[in-house]
């Protein structure tokens, strides 16, 4: 049962050439198992395909379990054996699931009904049901301690904080309906919440342990769009709506550390990402540039900025039946979409940003060039590679342990890139498995691939520790 079809996929790693190389993807299904980066051989095994609905599939934070939803059922599996450990039945079709930080509980939200059901892994008989009633429900999440649930009611009337320990219920009024209005520090100590009062934006910082308001300050934004803590939990990045290019950095105690504005008038910030070191902030904007900015104290010195140049390199496409990455030399034209000017939310600008866990790389996607993923060498501040896929990139995610990027494009393949090379693998199985989304196991050993109705796990077995296998990026440039 576990790992039913052990489809063996072999692919050769192409050495990724330094800067302007780009590729498009490969992998014939052959029964050989190694894709060998320098110094390591890795095998990719695929589990059998399981049913799934609403793309709800999540690894538990401790990496032991895998939760997936099929209609109104929640299935908990062991990550290694993939055996079903628990099966919970909810009252309606599940729309959202989330593991508690200690992996003991899992919440299932049914927004339509305004219901949240919480299940315990240790005590299968234990249950908890939270009904928001006529207030409605649009979002639900765990507090970092795993004992409180924050429910956002319809129209963002309030956030209800339900405690699993006591009967207490707290309300937080005036939450702002925005892109990312709630953020927790990585250590789980503080929560920052975007609020809107008297037509002004405010940020409230709460202590998560007792939900006490620690700081409350108004931000110099027209219409705050998102907030994000730095990984060290000391700096809060606040960005304004796309109509205004404005990124503000606030200290934990509410002081404004620096403000940044690259240009005026045209559409501004589209995405923001902190570097794992908390030292830098990457800001993707609608003009297709990424500003990589030092988040320093002094606002005058703050602009260690570098605007990445627009597309420089990419690759030619390969045939559809058998795809492979081709390394293309410098001047390559990328397939670009012409933005429709008279529509709101034009498909332009940097829509996605992600730092690699080791702080070496930054992956970006320009929405007007949907087929390509740019990978930047952050240390040298230059373009490292551009990966052009055959179809628009749906999502990409870095391996949590090493510089390895998994990309999916809604096709039957999953693409992996590392500084040592890149590979594309056909997901085995009958029928078409269209990978719409993916998520890494925290160990980086496996990867869940999600399609519309199914999911499967992809196990990446490396013979040795991969950090050494792939080497430092410096070696390759």
């Amino acid at each position, binding site marked *: 049962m576990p790992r039913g079809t052990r489809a063996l996929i072999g692919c050769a790693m192409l050495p990724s050439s330094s800067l302007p190389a780009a590729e498009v993807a490969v992998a014939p299904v052959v029964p050989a198992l190694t894709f060998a980066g320098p110094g390591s051989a890795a095998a990719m095994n695929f589990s059998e395909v399981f049913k799934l609905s609403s793309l709800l599939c999540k690894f538990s934070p401790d990496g032991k379990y895998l939760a997936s939803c099929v209609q109104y059922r929640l299935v908990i599996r062991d990550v290694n054996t993939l055996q079903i450990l628990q099966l919970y039945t909810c009252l309606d079709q599940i729309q959202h699931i989330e593991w508690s930080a200690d992996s003991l509980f899992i919440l299932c939200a049914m927004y339509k009904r305004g219901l949240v059901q919480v299940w315990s892994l240790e005590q299968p008989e234990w249950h908890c049901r939270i009904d928001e009633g006529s207030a409605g429900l649009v979002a639900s999440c765990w507090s970092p301690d795993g004992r409180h649930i924050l429910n956002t009611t319809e129209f963002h009337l309030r956030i209800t904080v339900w405690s699993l320990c006591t009967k207490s219920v707290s309300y937080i009024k005036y939450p702002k309906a925005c892109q990312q209005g709630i953020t927790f520090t990585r250590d789980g100590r503080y929560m920052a919440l975007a609020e809107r009062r008297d037509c002004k934006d405010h940020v409230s910082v709460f202590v998560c342990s*007792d939900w006490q308001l620690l700081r409350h300050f108004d931000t110099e934004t027209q219409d705050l769009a998102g907030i994000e803590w730095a990984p060290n939990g000391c700096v809060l990045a606040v960005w304004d709506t796309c109509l205004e290019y404005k990124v503000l950095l606030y200290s934990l105690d509410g002081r404004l550390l620096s403000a940044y504005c690259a240009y005026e008038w045209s559409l501004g910030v589209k995405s923001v990402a902190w570097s794992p070191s908390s030292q830098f902030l990457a800001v993707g904007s609608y003009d297709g540039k990424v500003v990589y900015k030092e988040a320093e104290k002094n606002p005058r010195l703050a602009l260690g900025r570098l605007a990445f140049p627009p597309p420089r390199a990419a690759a030619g496409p390969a045939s559809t039946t058998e795809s492979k990455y081709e390394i293309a030399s410098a001047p390559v034209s990328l397939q670009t979409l012409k933005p429709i000017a008279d529509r709101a939310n034009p498909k332009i600008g940097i829509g996605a940003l992600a730092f690699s866990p080791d702080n070496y790389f930054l992956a970006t996607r320009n929405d007007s060039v949907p087929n390509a993923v740019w990978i930047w060498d952050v240390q040298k501040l230059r373009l490292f590679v551009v990966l052009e896929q055959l179809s628009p990139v749906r999502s990409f995610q870095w391996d949590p342990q090493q510089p390895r990027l998994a990309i999916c494009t809604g096709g039957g393949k999953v693409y992996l890139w590392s500084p040592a090379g890149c590979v594309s693998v056909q997901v085995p199985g009958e029928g078409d498995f269209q990978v719409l989304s993916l998520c890494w196991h925290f160990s980086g050993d496996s990867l869940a691939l999600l399609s519309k109705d199914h999911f499967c796990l992809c196990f990446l077995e490396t013979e040795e520790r991969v950090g050494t296998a792939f080497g430092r990026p410096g070696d390759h440039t």
Partner: protein
Amino acid sequence: MGEWMTVTDPDLSSENKNICQYTSETKMSPSSLYSQQVLCSSIPLSKNVHSFFSAFCTEENIEQSISYLDQELTTFGFPSLYEESKGKDTKRELNIVAVLNCMNELLVLQRKNLLAQENVETQNLKLGSDMDHLQNCYAKLKEQLETSRREMIGLQERDRQLQCKNRNLHQLLKNEKDEVQKLQNIIASRATQYNHDMKRKEREYNKLKERLHQLVMNKKDKKIAMEVLNYVGRADGKRGSWRTGKTEARNEDEMYKILLNDYEYRQKQILMENAELKKVLQQMKKEMISLLSPQKQKPRERADDSTGTVISDAEEDAGELSRESMWDLSCETVREQLTNSIRKQWRILKSHVEKLDNQVSKVHLEGFNDEDVISRQDHEQETEKLELEIQQCKEMIKTQQQLLQQQLATACDDDTTSLLRDCYLLEEKERLKEEWSLFKEQKKNFEKERRSFTEAAIRLGLEKTISIHYPLWVGFLLRKAFEEERASWLKQQFLNMTTFDHQNSENMKLFSAFSGSSDRDSLTVHSRPRQKKPHGVSNGSPVRTSKLTKSLPASPSTSDFCQTRSCASEHSSINVLNITPEETKPNPVGREGTNQKWSRASRPASQEGCYSGRSSTCTNSHVEKDDLP
């Protein structure tokens, strides 16, 4: 001449004119008009004159003509044609002489006039052509003036047009600017309006929200509830605490603690970075000072050099170096000093490197020096010599072999002797083989070394460090000496082999054992003074030899050989090391070679050690190997 002409001519002409006028006024002769014409036109045609004269005077009017002429001539200032009258009444007589004189005078005048006329004519022509030329010039210039005037007008016109255009463009720009301003104003006003509306709507929306909230809350919505089987413990195991002022203060404290920790962490990192950088700077400075101090003298000699001034700074810095510990104490005060001194040093280094670059380029231009060429030739000669020696050694061995074979050829009838012979033969053969291989090896090594030496020499030549060649030569000499010794020893051995017989072998053994060691001693002693020159090695060599003799009771030849070889190779290696780091490559090779030799040398010894029991009685030829007890 020309001047004179111009001066005189007008006088002449005026005089002529005066004359003409005068004549026209005074005399109304029928032919006066004609004569006047003649004079004025001054085209003297002899025929005309002749005809005129013929017409002027006839038989009848001689008297009148004469009187006329006389009158005329006197008016012109000529003497009268008549003789001076004695009385009023008397008829005046014609003076022939006076007439002739007058005629002559007239002719002379005529000639003069002709000449003058000619001159005037040429002058006239000249002036005419000049005039033409000037007129042409004038015309041309006039034309030019005209065209340039036209051009100027054109340009002015264009300028005017451009200015006009510019003005238009300015106007357009201004209009555009105005437009932009207007649009911006519109945008701003719209934005404010929009914001206002938004605010209004948001307020309404907030009111609605508030109302909704109230409704939702007031409805006593029973649905809003949480059903829990049982409450679970907190993740940290603690009980929830009440919110009090205390907790608030604690939270504040914690927050500031976190912030402080972060700042401290960062400060620590910065400090570490600073310390690292300081260390690097100091290290750099130290190295620079040490690097630059030996060159201090040189640039100072060249006082005109720009570095001269900086050198003094360098000296100061060298002094500062001793006070370095101070730097660690107070960064603030010394920071500037440090950076400044580093900068200075860097400048010096830079200039020095540039100088070196220049020198190198110069050297490249000059090509190889004569000295270097000579040294290379020497090398070649030496290697040739060595090769020759090897050849000689080979020949020696050959003859030895032949002799041995001859000896073998003189067969013995005795079984025991033959057996012994065989035994000996085997051994000897083996030994010879060994020796043969040894020689081959040696040769190979010589070749190798020769190559490396030549290479080294070339590089050395490039670097102009001839002094370093010296130890090399010592090495060569050593080897050469050794070769000679070896050759002589072989000769000796050969002689021994041929002359001594079996009976003497025992004695010989003893003797040779003794002599061998003494030989060795003498050799080491011998080699020592030579080794004195290559520094540092001489001390080590005796120890080495003693060890050798102890550990390797093999033939003195091999041991000695090894010893000297190693010495030589060490010399070479040391020298090579002194030369350049790249030169170390051949060095390990050389060492390996010697090591091989060691093993090779030791092997026969041990083998022979085993054999010695039997072979001792055989011949005295391998006496030297029977040192084993």
